[in-house]
């Protein structure tokens, strides 16, 4: 079994990391990068070099998302036998100060070294920073950017999928192995039959994280029971929802976890080839997954003989070109086949006839990323997290008018109030909460009176919204709901593939009615017409996009009807409403 060598590599990497007295983690995920994390990383690197200390005093590591994106760039310092420290809003000026606070200086000669002159940060700069830090004492500027790690934003989260993001270097397979990576795959290959794997996943209660929430184990079993050869595994990384970036983060920051889940799935269903369908707008995710595949191939984790067993599996990347409807599984299949991404009637379901008419498992990135943890810790452990019908955790991209925004992972069953007020830190600028929008353009708005309902598949559906893939946008009382609903309808008009009439024509007409109402030209009959039309589109569309497109309108009509009524009685109140 090849895993012994892999384990050795992991142990070696762990020993290497252990040699360092402290490790400085710099988040280089997309959000932090746009806040300048690239330069901060360089600055940290140069500062450590300028300290002229022993090589093993400090190591600067590029990692993935640490969660609190609104305070990016984030830098975490882990020193042996000490609690980790987190700095937020780090700038290139503050980075050397952080280093000078935590990393000791080596010997520096009085005369500046010639080589040092080319550096933007010299040892003498570092000496200077140390002196001024000492002088400032407790008033140091650095204390202002310290983020306490015991705030509810961190303590209320339960990390399964995001367990290693922010801790491992996503470009290094060794780092993933050092954190117990590919252990689950090795265990599965050695000790479990495909049937047992499917049962384990079924027992864990894991449900599809793409939005619909179909039991994953059941889906796998359907494909496993098909007797044909040439089955496929497709990982859906076409995250088209505006306001959602969970899958991107997992693919960018822990690509091997997705890959491991995918290979386990392939073993369980008896597939030898699979595709990761990634959105074209995510170039970093594409690069990192491709690198992960190359590294896995080199280590014999992918290929004709996975880890030296008879089981062979190959994975490849397919790039999406920006079509929201491709999140729908039959549309995604067409897109992987190089066609227009249009959905088709189901049945037959992809588990019977999918990619090139072969039985196909399609799972979301987050679903796959859950699999290794379930195998490692057992189905019982996973089932102990969450509610009766919704097990485990869910990753949300928390955004909107909140103090803390970013990427969070919470146990199912947590209340929206906890997410908004504890994790999110409440509404920005002391304004009032108006609604929580879940599920993107397919979801709905949940008003304040339902803030105490638990977050799980059934509860959200009952409220007229959906779990969706994990976008969670909180809006304050400055937002006008008809306008907000219109925004989503615009999106659906654009993204409707045009195959079925209710969706193609219906969404346009709903949009027109909303425009008319918002312009103040609406009548009570228009409101009735709007409701009727929404119902028709919801019940008669071919695929999930059309069926759920009216959700934003229906849910705002349900909970914020007064705002629509106001539009009819007091024309023109919603114009230019976005503030």
């Amino acid at each position, binding site marked *: 079994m090849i895993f012994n060598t892999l384990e050795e590599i992991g142990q070696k990497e762990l020993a290497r990391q252990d040699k360092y007295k402290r490790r400085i983690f710099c988040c280089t995920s997309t959000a932090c990068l746009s806040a300048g994390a690239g330069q901060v990383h360089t600055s940290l690197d140069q500062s450590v070099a300028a300290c002229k200390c022993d090589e093993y005093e400090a190591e600067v590591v590029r990692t993935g998302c640490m969660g609190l994106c609104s305070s990016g760039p984030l830098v975490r310092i882990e020193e042996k036998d000490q609690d980790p420290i987190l700095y937020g809003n780090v700038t290139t000026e503050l980075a050397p100060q952080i280093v000078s606070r935590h990393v000791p200086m080596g010997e520096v000669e009085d005369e500046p070294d010639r080589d040092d002159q080319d550096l933007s940060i010299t040892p003498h700069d570092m000496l200077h920073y140390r002196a001024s830090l000492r002088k400032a004492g407790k008033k140091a500027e650095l204390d202002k950017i310290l983020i306490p790690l015991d705030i509810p934003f961190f303590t209320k989260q339960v990390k399964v999928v995001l367990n290693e993001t922010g801790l491992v270097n996503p470009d290094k397979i060794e780092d993933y192995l050092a954190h117990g990576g590919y252990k689950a795959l090795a265990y599965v290959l050695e000790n479990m039959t495909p049937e047992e794997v499917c049962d384990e996943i079924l027992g864990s209660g894991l449900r599809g994280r793409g939005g619909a929430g179909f039991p994953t184990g059941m889906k796998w079993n359907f494909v496993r029971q098909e007797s044909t050869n040439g089955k496929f595994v497709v990982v859906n990384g076409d995250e088209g929802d505006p306001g959602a970036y969970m899958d*991107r983060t997992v693919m960018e920051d822990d690509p091997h976890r997705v890959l491991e889940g995918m290979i386990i799935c392939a073993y369980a269903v008896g597939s030898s080839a699979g595709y990761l369908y990634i959105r074209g707008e995510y170039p970093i995710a594409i690069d990192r997954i491709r690198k992960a595949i190359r590294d896995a191939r080199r280590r014999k984790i992918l290929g004709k003989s996975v880890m030296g067993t008879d089981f062979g599996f190959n994975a490849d990347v397919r790039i999406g070109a920006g079509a*929201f409807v491709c999140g729908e599984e039959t549309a995604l299949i067409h897109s992987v086949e190089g066609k227009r991404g249009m959905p088709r009637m189901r049945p037959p379901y992809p588990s019977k006839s999918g990619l090139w008419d072969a039985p196909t498992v399609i799972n979301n990135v987050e679903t796959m990323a859950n699999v290794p943890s379930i195998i490692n810790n057992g189905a019982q452990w996973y089932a102990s997290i969450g509610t009766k019908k919704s097990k485990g955790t869910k990753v949300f991209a928390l*955004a909107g008018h909140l103090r803390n925004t970013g*990427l969070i992972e919470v146990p199912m069953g947590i209340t929206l109030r906890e997410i908004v007020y504890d994790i999110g830190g409440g509404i920005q600028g002391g304004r009032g909460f108006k609604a929580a929008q879940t599920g993107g353009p397919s979801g709905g708005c949940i008003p304040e009176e339902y803030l105490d309902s638990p977050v799980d598949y059934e509860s959200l559906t009952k409220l007229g919204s959906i779990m969706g893939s994990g976008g969670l946008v909180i809006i304050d009382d400055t937002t006008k709901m008809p306008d907000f609903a219109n925004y989503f309808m615009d999106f659906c008009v654009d993204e409707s593939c045009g195959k079925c009439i209710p969706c193609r024509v219906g969404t346009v007409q709903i949009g027109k009615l909303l425009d008319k109402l918002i312009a103040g030209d609406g009548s009570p009959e228009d409101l009735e017409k709007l409701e009727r039309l929404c119902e028709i589109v919801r019940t008669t569309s071919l695929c999930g996009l059309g069926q759920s497109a009216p959700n934003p309108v229906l849910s705002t009509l349900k909970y914020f009807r007064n705002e629509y009524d106001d539009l009819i009685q007091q024309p023109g109140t919603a114009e230019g409403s976005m503030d």
Partner: protein
Amino acid sequence: MTTKKPIKADKEVHPSGDERYLAIDRTMKQFNYEKDSLLEVLNAAQEAFGYLSRDLLIYISTQLKVPMSQVYGVATFYHLFTFEPQGEHNCIICKGTACHVKGADRIIEALSEEFEINAGETTPDGLFSLTIARCLGSCGLAPVIVLNGQVYGKETPEAVRRRAAEVVSFSKEEQTQTMEVG
């Protein structure tokens, strides 16, 4: 990206004389000219040329032996493909939900006013394109824009307007200077 040996551009010449076709050929070769690879090939073409011209679509159609109608159908279906050359400077405004509630619309308005173009258009002098993105996935920093590949978060309409006007006026000066010299 998956080819092992880097191909030296000076040794290989494409019959058209345009090196950029080599990137497309490489992708097609990688997929053994399979019809299923159409989307990948279009992606490669868009990356090499920046947009898909009519000639390019015809080239792909003949090479992959896929009817032109199908190539055109697939290319126009997806948002990522453009059929007009982009401006020298490009500003992408994120219109994701988080950016929307934080005022992305006003940024778009400010830029359309400044350059007198609508979203998705390029100025007649070819200097500036205004593009809308569905979601850039940096929702924590909303509203987000990308100006010439550089991402800026927590933006205001005035700041974006100033920034964009600055880069464009710089190019304009350069243009007039070269014209004077020429």
